[in-house]
């Protein structure tokens, strides 16, 4: 059965008695089978376990920057969740680990050298504007971590822009070079201006060493997005544990490969499809962000189309806009279409389709 669990906050006045770990409402297409092990808490913890390799790479590559940034995001997210629940007079939902996961994903999606206030403001926006104003977990339309990231991205464009990643004098060697996607954009600009030849540019960004570096994560970028292998490990774990469904990541990957191939052939982008896939946050987003059960469709076809949409917008933003990466906006855009996708893809109930009237 496909998984589509979400917890609706209970408005029970005696909040002390209410256990936040039991899912009070599950949304999924038929057949409806009850499984108490699919609690919100369990799913969140599974995702956190799947993120362990990614976190390990982040700490290995970016050292203390990763620890402080992610830690701060998680702490502020937990604090905001607890404080806003109290303010709204709701039962406490800190124990369901969802705020921890939001903080973790937000932290992993921020640049390695994001100043502390970016983490704080982003976490407050993620929990406050992304979740609490809609009524808490399960009621939010947009992915909270991406709402928080969009908020700080638009607020502190200087601190989070492509140029901010690069620090020339640093003990971390990876950060002296631009992020892979900025580098590709730079070469494309240089090529257009006739400063390099196409062969040179390709050689620079498509070499075997670069490919290997992208796989293991020895490149500049946001904390969680650098290593393709670590992300794939997490993804396989989540698929095996049936926490996420395969339709969304497959949709994202398939359509982005096709779109990049098209734009690669027409000369719109220098990078090959494979390189696009493992550069930037595409893979991280496909596995950990787009699969958020609350903000993705509940039907199988809906999920696939949702994944296709994300992949398509990522490539459009990467290739045609001045932003090097477009995952955040792509996810937020497709989040808005989820109610429609759900409505358009209602599956046949068990026992055959409902006969049409008239």
């Amino acid at each position: 059965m496909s998984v589509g669990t979400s917890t609706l906050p209970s408005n029970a006045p005696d909040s002390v008695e209410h256990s936040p770990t039991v899912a009070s409402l599950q949304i999924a297409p038929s057949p409806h089978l009850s499984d108490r092990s699919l609690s919100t808490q369990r799913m969140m913890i599974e995702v956190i376990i799947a993120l362990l390799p990614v976190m390990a790479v982040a700490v290995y590559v970016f050292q203390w920057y990763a620890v402080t940034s992610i830690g701060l995001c998680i702490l502020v997210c937990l604090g905001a969740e607890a404080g806003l629940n109290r303010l709204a007079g709701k039962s406490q939902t800190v124990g369901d680990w969802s705020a921890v996961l939001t903080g973790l994903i937000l932290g992993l999606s921020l640049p390695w050298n994001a100043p502390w206030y970016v983490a704080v403001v982003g976490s407050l926006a993620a929990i406050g504007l992304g979740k609490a104003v809609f009524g808490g977990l399960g009621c939010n339309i947009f992915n909270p971590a991406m709402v928080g990231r969009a908020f700080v991205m638009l607020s502190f464009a200087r601190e989070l822009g492509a140029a901010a990643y690069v620090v020339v004098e640093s003990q971390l060697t990876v950060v002296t070079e631009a992020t892979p996607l900025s580098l590709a954009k730079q070469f494309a600009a240089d090529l257009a201006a006739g400063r390099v030849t196409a062969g040179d540019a390709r050689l620079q960004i498509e070499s075997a060493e670069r490919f290997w570096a992208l796989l293991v994560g020895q490149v500049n970028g946001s904390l969680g997005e650098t290593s393709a292998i670590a992300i794939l490990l997490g993804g396989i774990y989540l698929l095996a544990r049936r926490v996420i469904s395969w339709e969304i990541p497959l949709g994202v990957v398939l359509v982005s490969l096709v779109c990049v191939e098209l734009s690669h052939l027409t000369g719109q982008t220098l990078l090959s499809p494979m390189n696009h896939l493992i550069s930037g946050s595409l893979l991280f987003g496909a596995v950990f962000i787009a699969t958020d059960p609350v903000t993705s469709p509940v039907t199988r076809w809906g999920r696939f189309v949702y994944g296709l949409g994300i992949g398509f917008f990522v490539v459009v933003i990467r290739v045609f806009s001045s932003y090097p990466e477009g995952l955040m906006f792509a996810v937020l855009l497709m989040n808005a279409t989820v109610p429609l996708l759900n409505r358009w893809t209602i599956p046949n109930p068990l026992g055959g389709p409902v006969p049409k009237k008239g």
Partner: protein
Amino acid sequence: MAAASPTALERFLNGIIPENPVYRQLLGMCPVLAVTGAMKPALTMAAATAFVLICANLLISLIRGLLKPHLRILVFTMTIATFVTIADRFLAAYLYDMSKELGPYVPLIIANCLIISRCEICSSKQSVGVAFADGVGMSLGFALALASIATVREILGSGTWFGLTVLPSFWPTWGIMVLPPGAFLVLGLLLGLVEWIGHRRATST
């Protein structure tokens, strides 16, 4: 009519908080979102709207006995459009920089539902004094709403208020507040706050 028409004082007070054009009636959202990035343009817009609203209210109230029911909207629109054009030309002549900054939003006062709704609800039915009080009250309410949103956006987004620096230089300004998304976020949050305060007052008494 069953209920007595509100008096001038009631009209005046209603406009400021109980029937606030922005927070209660949700009218005139276009300037509320578009020009509240800073205090100066917000208050210039509020003043231009006040001029048009008060003048239109006075004139419609004066000729209310002559209005034909099926032609009244036409008369309202003509009157409003005339005063808007006058306001727009005066801004361009005497506050050129501000008029450039406000751009199309001054001519767009014509489309502000607040003004035509006041013509319809109040000035086409009541005396000149009441219509004047209504115009002033509604204008104050509108100015208050614009100023509240602009205060949040300018302080958080630029660290200034009326162009004067109010936040220390180490404070990182939130660029999103000056951008269009900031307008929607602040409007939504302040609407929620006003609603919440109103709700608490209603339940506590």
